[in-house]
């Protein structure tokens, strides 16, 4: 089996089989990651460029390490957000990188659809590492990997996602991915942070965190960007925590063996209480490890498409 597209732009475009294939591959990669000698030749002779138009520490490092563990040449380009509008166009930048022999370009951009534009204009495979409020597919894949690793499957699970749904690309990717694998996704957050007509995309939308949490198998908190409060989308972090914060008491509404996830970085005492973050339900640290495994899997699958083409 191969991935149909040369790029990974979002989970909206992947089939259930493709997602499962990526997760299976990531399982193998995790074994490599946990071995003593974290080096494989899978990507020898390949180059991976991270092109980041937004600040990022963990996602970028995760991709870079994934590439290096598999022996790829890796390089980073950071473009200041301020130069997006007036500087070189994305297409021109992409073509330049392409002509230097990039096999994979990992892009993060503040504008939805930027990876799609890049992908149409380069020969290299493009991986979306987050585009505006649209998608963050590798984050969702690592979330799903983490759940499947613990629960065996996503089928029939109730996943409660709490927080700033409106601005979250993590939510969108998780909605597409998790519902494709048979989970029931419920969301809750301040009503000013719920996008319009979200109920029509196959998720349940609740106004209280309690309703969303009842009998949940997986609970995911989302990062609250402090500047959203300044824009008047909710009155204060204090009030947010009071109505939507996840603490031990609220978590009791979820199933006994519920898992707690968060894409990080966490604002302690805003989205989650410190006790929950550091508690035994929390998989926040494991998510980070799994992120590298999932990204190794993707780099591997996308760079071997050429050599296996025609076999299937």
């Amino acid at each position, binding site marked *: 089996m191969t991935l149909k597209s040369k790029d990974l732009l979002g989970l909206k475009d992947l089939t259930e089989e493709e997602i499962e294939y990526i997760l299976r591959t990531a399982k193998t990669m995790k074994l490599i990651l946990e071995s003593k000698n974290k080096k494989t030749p899978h990507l020898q002779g390949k180059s991976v460029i991270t092109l980041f138009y937004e600040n990022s520490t963990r996602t970028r490092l995760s991709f870079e390490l994934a590439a290096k563990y598999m022996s790829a040449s890796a390089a980073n380009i950071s473009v200041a957000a301020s130069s997006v509008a007036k500087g070189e166009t994305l297409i021109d930048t992409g073509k330049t990188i392409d002509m230097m022999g990039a096999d994979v370009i990992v892009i993060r951009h503040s504008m939805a*659809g930027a990876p799609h534009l890049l992908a149409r204009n380069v020969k290299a495979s493009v991986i979306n590492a987050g*585009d505006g409020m649209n998608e963050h597919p590798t984050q969702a894949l690592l979330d799903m990997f983490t759940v499947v690793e613990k629960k065996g499957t996503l089928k029939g699970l109730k996943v409660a996602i709490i927080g700033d749904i409106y601005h979250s690309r993590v939510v969108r990717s998780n909605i597409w991915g998790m519902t494709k694998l048979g989970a029931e996704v419920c969301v809750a957050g301040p009503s000013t942070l719920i996008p319009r007509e979200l109920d029509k995309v196959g998720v349940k939308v609740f106004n209280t965190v309690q309703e969303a949490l009842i009998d949940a198998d997986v609970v995911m908190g989302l990062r609250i960007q402090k500047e959203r409060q300044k824009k008047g989308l909710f009155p204060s972090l204090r009030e947010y925590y009071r109505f939507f914060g996840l603490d031990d008491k609220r978590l009791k509404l979820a199933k006994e063996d519920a898992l707690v996830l968060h894409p990080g970085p966490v604002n302690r005492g805003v989205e989650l209480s410190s006790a929950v973050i550091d508690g035994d339900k929390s998989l926040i640290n494991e998510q980070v490890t799994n992120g590298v495994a999932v990204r190794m899997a993707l780099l591997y699958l996308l760079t071997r498409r050429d050599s296996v083409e025609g076999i299937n």
Partner: protein
Amino acid sequence: MRVLIKGGYVIDPKTNTDGVNDILIEDGIITEIGNISDELVDLNCDVIDAKGKYVLPGLVDAHCHLRDPGFEYKEDIESGTRSAAAGGFTSIACMPNTNPVADNESVIRYIINKAKQDGVVNVYPIGAISKGQKGEELSEIGELKFAGAVAISDDGKPLKSASLMKRALEYSSMFDITVISHCEEMDIADEGVMNEGYWSTIMGLKGIPSAAEEIMVARELILAEYTKVPIHIAHVSTELSVDLIRHAKKRGVKVTCETCPHYFVLTDEACAGFNTYAKVNPPLRAKKDVEAIIEGLKDGTIDVIATDHAPHHEDEKNIEFSLAANGIAGFETAFPLAVTYLVKPGHLTMSQLVEKMCINPSKILGLNKGSLEIGRNADITIVDIDEEFVVDVKKFKSKARNSPFNGFKLKGTVYYTIVNGKVVVREKVLL
């Protein structure tokens, strides 16, 4: 020099003409309509066989952008008027968001003079309501009028201040010049890039609520009622806007309004896949809005179909969706879209379409155009509404290619465009 149009089906509700007739044009003026004898045919007479075709008053566009002066890389008066002629338009009114802004006499005169020199259709400039379209001080509206502006509008940069709009209405009433409002409450539209709804949610793009348009439509209707000065609402795109205008008309408010083909043909789904050609302002809306626009056209709430021809350079569309320019190059698809989506499904008769694309825009802008009366300048469009063609943006006469309709199969081809008696399009070929 004479032109004789033979045997076409002539429609002009203003003169109650609805049947097969011949039209004689002498020295650019319509001199006879009826059954005209072939005796007139001689070497000095250009005979056009219009059998099986509709002969209409030349189309009048109440809203377009010619980008001249200042943005000639997108379009200029020559290419823009040629595009208009190819689409069957004989008179067009262009918006003032040029560089410099058409907020003073000299820019208005420049446009009029350049149109006389390079243009192939009649061009009527629209002046800015406020200096520099900044929404702070009124432009010299009287001077704009005397220089030849047919209306005033801050299209694209709506007046934030309700009091300035009130004053614009009051002041302009002295000069009998139409005030056109682009309704968009920027505070609520914020940084949105497409309609807020299902598709913006799916694509993770910031939405523009329909309320952004409706709030300002309501404001303008209230101000028009209060000042008793007529107002024309540009490019209506939502269900509630139509309803508010319908209600205001019932109350006797002197309001007229227009919509554009994309608002009765496309929904916001057209933006899927980050299709920047479907990025336009106001944004493409939901299905219920499209249905309401059609209803508004049928019951007469919407008076005019305008193009909002908004040409852009390819580089301004082939970029990130959020950065891409708003607008659709609409001259060359407007008439066929109206035929295909309004006349063919039975929403409008050809006669009603002539009202919305000829008579009403002409009346609202105070032009002596849009009908086939004897003694008028001969602005005539001859069309075949059954002939099908596939839209190919590469064949546009406009400099621009930005259209979401590329590849659409449409009915309604322009065979002849005659401007002041001069044949500009002959047998589908722009001369």
